[in-house]
């Protein structure tokens, strides 16, 4: 295992032992599966206390009102953990979600899971090609955050973007068609798995290189601030979420954007989906200080760590981070500890990860966890869940049928969206703009 290999090398400082025992030195809580079961009372509300800074009356209400509020920017995970361990397992006075909210969260996560499973099937049947990165296991992060957004809020993702698109509201049909390369896809078949865009739902991509979406998200947040302050649209409080992984947190663009976002107090939340693995590179082997949330305070913004396998905890943290941004208090860095059940992509044999680690996280499946919570608190019964499962199955099947029946792009589509203003193709030898040539749209013109 990697940990033992490390301790053998002379010049490396000993890193904390690998995941099975502890993921970080202080968080021994996650080591013992039994402990986890008893503390599944979702403790997200404890986190919110630390995040909120203002006592302004306009603060958006979170589902649980917090009694104590603390001032500093920095949130130490150790404090959170201390509270967790001292917290008795007695149930909280108020539930974290209503039945409707719970079922909506469940449905969204099941949609993500079923869709990704169907993608795998379709890939192995030769309906889609290239690099396809599936999101199985990480649904709590997408659902927890994106379901709190308005349509005008923006989401920027990476190549693991199918579920972000679905959570943001892009129809499953459009995403599946895009994956099949059909012209009815959300990007007319021109983007593919790694480039999901939706103008209507404000999904700003889908980026293939890691880190290159973060500046774009920063730009969208800048626009929101610009609208409010320069264009005087006083009610513009659009928030942008930037999703990226643990590997990205060692990339220059990440740090440059943390700096700019904090400097100008941009309404953005940086969401780190720390699933511990960048293809075959363990986070612990690539990062000098593996605790990513710590990098927030270094730039002057709160850094929060949250259990990314628990949708209610994520949702609680997300509420506060998004409200902070809406209030104009600036960015937040949220590190979600999560895990992907499948390999990095469908081409990844996934031989490097320890089966024991995979088994450990399989017991923390966010969908099962939510179901369990709702059962325990009598929010829903088995029949209702089954109904949702069936509904989603039908939806995904319908998406596949739609994609199958959709046409492939015609030759004339090749040159169509290269330029927003097609005069950019220039003036041809005959004096006309190339785009004025009828053969251009038919796709038979020489450029």
């Amino acid at each position: 295992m990697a940990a033992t290999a490390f301790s053998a090398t002379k010049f490396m400082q000993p890193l904390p032992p690998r995941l099975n025992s502890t993921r970080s030195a202080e968080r021994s809580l996650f080591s013992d599966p039994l402990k986890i079961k008893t503390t599944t009372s979702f403790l997200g509300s404890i986190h919110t206390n630390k995040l909120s800074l203002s006592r302004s009356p306009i603060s958006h209400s979170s589902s649980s009102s917090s009694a104590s509020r603390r001032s500093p920017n920095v949130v130490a995970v150790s404090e959170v953990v201390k509270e967790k361990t001292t917290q008795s397992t007695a149930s909280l006075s108020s539930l974290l979600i209503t039945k409707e909210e719970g079922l909506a969260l469940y449905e969204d996560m099941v949609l993500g899971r079923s869709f990704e499973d169907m993608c795998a099937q379709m890939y192995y049947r030769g309906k889609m090609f290239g690099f396809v990165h599936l999101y199985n296991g990480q649904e709590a992060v997408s659902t927890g955050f994106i379901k709190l957004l308005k349509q005008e809020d923006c989401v920027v993702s990476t190549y693991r973007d199918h579920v972000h698109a679905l959570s943001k509201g892009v129809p499953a049909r459009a995403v599946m068609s895009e994956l099949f390369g059909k012209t009815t896809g959300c990007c007319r078949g021109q983007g593919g798995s790694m480039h999901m865009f939706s103008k209507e739902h404000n999904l700003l991509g889908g980026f293939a290189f890691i880190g290159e979406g973060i500046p774009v998200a920063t730009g969208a947040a800048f626009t929101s601030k610009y609208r409010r302050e320069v264009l005087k649209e006083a009610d513009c409080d659009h928030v942008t979420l930037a999703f990226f992984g643990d590997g990205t947190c060692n990339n220059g663009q990440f740090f440059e954007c943390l700096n700019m976002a904090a400097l100008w107090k941009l309404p953005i939340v940086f969401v780190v989906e720390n699933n511990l693995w960048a293809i075959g590179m363990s986070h612990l082997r690539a990062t000098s200080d593996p605790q990513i949330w710590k990098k927030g305070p270094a730039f002057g913004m709160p850094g929060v760590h949250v259990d990314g396998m628990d949708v209610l905890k994520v949702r609680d943290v997300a509420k506060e981070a998004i409200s902070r941004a809406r209030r104009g208090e600036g960015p937040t860095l949220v590190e979600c500890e999560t895990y992907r059940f499948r390999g990095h992509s469908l081409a990844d044999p996934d031989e490097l990860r320890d089966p024991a680690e995979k088994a450990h996280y399989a017991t923390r499946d966010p969908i099962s966890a939510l179901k369990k919570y709702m059962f325990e608190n009598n929010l829903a019964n088995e029949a209702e869940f089954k109904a949702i499962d069936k509904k989603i199955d039908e939806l995904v099947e319908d998406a596949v049928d739609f994609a199958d029946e959709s046409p492939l792009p015609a030759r004339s589509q090749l040159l169509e969206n290269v330029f927003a203003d097609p005069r950019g193709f220039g003036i041809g030898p005959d004096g006309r703009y190339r785009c004025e040539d009828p053969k251009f749209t038919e796709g038979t013109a020489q450029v």
Partner: protein
Amino acid sequence: MAAISQGIEATTALFLANSNKFLFSSCGSSLSEKKRNFFVVKSDGKSYSGLNQQQRRAQKVVTNAIATKKDKAPSSTASKPGHELLLFEALREGLEEEMDRDPCVCVMGEDVGHYGGSYKVTKGLAEKYGDLRVLDTPIAENSFTGMGIGAAMSGLRPIVEGMNMGFLLLAFNQISNNCGMLHYTSGGQFKIPIVIRGPGGVGRQLGAEHSQRLESYFQSIPGIQMVACSTAYNAKGLMKAAIRSENPVILFEHVLLYNLKERIPDEEYVLNLEEAEMVRPGEHVTILTYSRMRYHVMQAAKTLVNKGYDPEVIDIRSLKPFDLYTIGNSVKKTHRVLIVEECMRTGGIGASLTAAITENFHDYLDAPIVCLSSQDVPTPYSGTLEEWTVVQPAQIVAAVEQLCQLLR
């Protein structure tokens, strides 16, 4: 946001159905005046036919040959129309006019705000428009260019300044992947009306890294347009056109040209991004050039005229795409082509232009195309060595003489 989404659909729809929408009538006799009649449906649903009001004005102001301008003795300013200014002031004027016209236009870059820009192109703008509209960024080219792209996607019209064009090499990721490609990979949903500009080219002993010509590196990126300005007149016109364009445009300025003085019209004008500029009509040879080399060419032209040659000088201005109409008409007339550029020899603009001309106008050529470019060396610091890396007027004269000899 809503307005933009309408625009995207409308523009895409227009493009799909454009074969019966665009009408063409042949242009007038003069090479410098191109009339284009067309029917355009704009993204907001309004339509117009014939020339754009501003383009009509632009046609009226014919660019005078640089050589003749230099020879004119300075006369009293009171009698002449227009106003005199330096090239960097012309850029600023264009920028300011566009910022007044559209509140979504904003500037971002290093030292553009309080410092006024390292070449004073944005001087005074931060005081006028505020710190958010003229944004001083930290030194993070890749990220603030990406930020500009994200802002453009969400409705603003940013102008990103590279303090020196060479610094934009750090932003290559964003320029290539996002700026050029996102309109396409999003299926036309998002447009990126960004302008990336900055000074480049070989200056006065600035050293290798500050003397780069990035036009050759960027030219392959699909989805962007590149223009190079060379006079105060076209600097202002191209700046305005670039800002108004829905496409991402890279505007190449030159460090040594910022202090060129010229008289430009008082009334508003916008130039065409895709057109080349006829600098000096002639009969014997077509000399294609851009940016600073235009002045070396015109200096050589004086010598050539004295020796009895009649060169036609065209400033191609649009580096991507090439204006093959102006260039083609010239080739058909003179049958000999000389390209003078400041780019390096390998894979430069001249190389692409040579290929394009050979492909399209091979039959009209009486001699092989000659391309004079800078040497394939990192620009040395020492003055004499630096002089030898770029093309000098004497070399241009010699090349023309050799080209024309082949016909005598």
